[in-house]
């Protein structure tokens, strides 16, 4: 990232359906001796067992913006809280926002795109979703919120893996991949993931979009992994599902893009299809620009900036990813490829 964005406070949004283990993860993050100081925005006091952290109660007040953007909702309370937290600037290193189990992640994420004051001081680092290995498959069928939370995620923690068989675990992971093949997946019991796998992810995960094809995406296990692990979790045995309404589209183009074609194309796409596009991300090479251009978006909101230089010998290429409902894959691919310089 550029120096300016490194100065901004990273914000991790923690989502997950009721009972998946968000609070367990939060308590784990806060109690481990990592030397970092977190400001934590929670929905209910009392669940957090740690006293000596900056914990703020939020009300999840979701507001519509009067900006002509039909899907543009923000968390008004979050804007206020982040403004207030800045009075303690320098006293914490990062912000964690916990959402309720039934929350749509969009308003939280959009807050970091829409409000200039928030954008000036904070950046969305990652959306981390905790999924219950035992119940997620069922929730994906009966709870649209659960599906949105998976679709939105940059990092997914498949929790409570000790309660399911290896076959069931592969099944739930395949269901997750059908919705969101790009998120980093971690298996856990009682959310026993490494903190660095959850927090301060952004640079890693955006780079990863360029590096990995969805077909080869696998679960990343830890040293302390589980008895039921069959040792062949790389590539083999991954079932393929197609989610009935949520899908992801990745498109890659070798060589440069013409910014005068790409910018109008992506703006029009997100304006017209925004309500159906949950997340968009990309790293692109603009003709004549020595720097990689990195963007991410939520519904109609897009935010991009030049990042580091393309390295000598690094292949200049562009890749974009869209996750959403009822997307016209052929049209999106064609539109993207037509932006070649």
């Amino acid at each position: 990232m550029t120096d300016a964005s490194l100065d901004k406070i990273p914000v991790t949004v923690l989502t997950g359906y009721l009972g998946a283990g968000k609070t367990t993860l939060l308590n784990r993050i806060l109690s481990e001796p990592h030397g970092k100081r977190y400001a934590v925005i929670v929905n209910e006091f009392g669940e957090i067992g740690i006293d000596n952290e900056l914990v703020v109660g939020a009300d999840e007040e979701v507001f519509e913006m009067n900006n002509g953007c039909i899907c543009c909702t923000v968390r008004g309370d979050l804007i206020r809280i982040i403004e207030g937290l800045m009075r303690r600037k320098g006293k914490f290193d990062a912000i964690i926002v916990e959402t309720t189990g039934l929350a749509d992640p969009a308003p939280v994420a959009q807050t970091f795109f829409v409000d200039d004051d928030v954008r000036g001081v904070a950046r969305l680092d990652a959306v981390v979703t905790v999924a219950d290995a035992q119940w997620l498959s069922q929730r994906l069928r009966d709870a649209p919120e659960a599906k949105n939370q998976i679709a939105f995620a940059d990092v997914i923690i498949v929790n409570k893996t000790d309660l399911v068989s290896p076959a069931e675990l592969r099944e739930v992971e395949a269901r997750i991949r059908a919705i969101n093949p790009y998120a980093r997946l971690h298996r856990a019991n009682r959310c026993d993931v490494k903190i660095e796998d959850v927090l301060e992810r952004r640079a890693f995960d955006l780079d990863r979009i360029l590096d990995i094809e969805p077909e080869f995406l696998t679960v990343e296990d830890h040293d302390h992994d589980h008895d039921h692990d069959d040792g062949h979790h790389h590539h083999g045995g991954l079932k393929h599902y197609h989610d009935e309404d949520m899908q992801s589209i990745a498109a890659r183009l070798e060589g440069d893009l013409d910014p005068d074609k790409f910018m109008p194309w992506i703006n029009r796409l997100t304006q017209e299809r925004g309500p159906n596009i949950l997340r968009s991300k990309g790293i692109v090479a603009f003709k004549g620009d020595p720097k990689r251009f990195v963007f991410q978006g939520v519904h109609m909101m897009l935010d991009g900036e030049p990042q580091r230089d393309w390295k000598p010998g690094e292949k200049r290429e562009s890749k974009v990813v869209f996750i959403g409902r009822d997307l016209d894959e052929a049209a999106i691919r064609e539109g993207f490829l037509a932006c070649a310089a």
Partner: protein
Amino acid sequence: MVEPTSSLTAHLRSFAAGAPAVAAAFIGGEPALALADGAVVIGDPGAERRVAAHPDGAILVVARDGDSLLTGGDDGRVVRTSADGGLEEIAEEKGRWIDALTAQAGAIAWAAGKQARARDAAGAVKSWAAPTTVRGLAFLPKGYRLALAHYNGASLWFPNAAAAPTMLEWKGSHLDVSASPDGRFLVTSMQENALHGWRIVDARNMRMTGYPAKTRALSWSHDGHWLATSGADACVVWPFKDKDGPMGKAPRECGVRSARVVKVAFHPRALVVAIGYSDGMALLCRLVDAAEILVRAPGGGAVSALGWDATGARLLIGLDDGDAGLLTLPA
């Protein structure tokens, strides 16, 4: 006043407040800065005293109440600091933040989340829960009546009356609220880089738009005819003299620069507005001819606090990098 286009920087005494300034005021004739780190600094540069009004908290909101300064913190406390440095806890909202605070003639009002409370000069406290979080509070100039800014409008509440508050509706998130000195108009700043106003008698709406950023500073002229606002690369001043207020009229602009106006404070006796910018510069601007006088050259942080004394002889400036300055106008 001094000749236009001259500079008053030689009359500005800079000092280190030690933490970002949240608000500036004069209490009992003494300059006082409320700081983000929970302290209040009182006294002339070089002889200032530091009072820990919120030892474990940050100051979020500030209001002057006569000769004392009221502060609301993220420790949930409302604290009164007197000119002699004495502290008095007015209220505590356990586990909450004080999001809004105002005072007038001994009456105090504060809000934590949706909960608003009004305390009359005798100390009786009344409570009302707004439909959503209260972002701004202001007493109307006459009577014991409170205006509350929240989502989708503002409410007018008589704390001593049994009747439900009246709501002035306008879609969107309303932040700060201010009543005109004659009590005819109510103005809010909004999330969408705009101001909204109502003529209170008939709830007629007024939209004041065109700002590139949120307006978080509002200041009425001493005669109540003008409202100075931040949020643009100039101080935008709306006319409120006529019965229709600014409706159908263009605002005046003064202090146009290529830096954002972040703080404004009208002189208490003259049509002169003090303007603070995001680059640390401060100006005085005379409304009649837009003549400008430099008070503080650009540099350091952004101006985050401006306050005049009662006669307009001194102006206290606080910045968000912990720097401060006291201007004494030449006699």
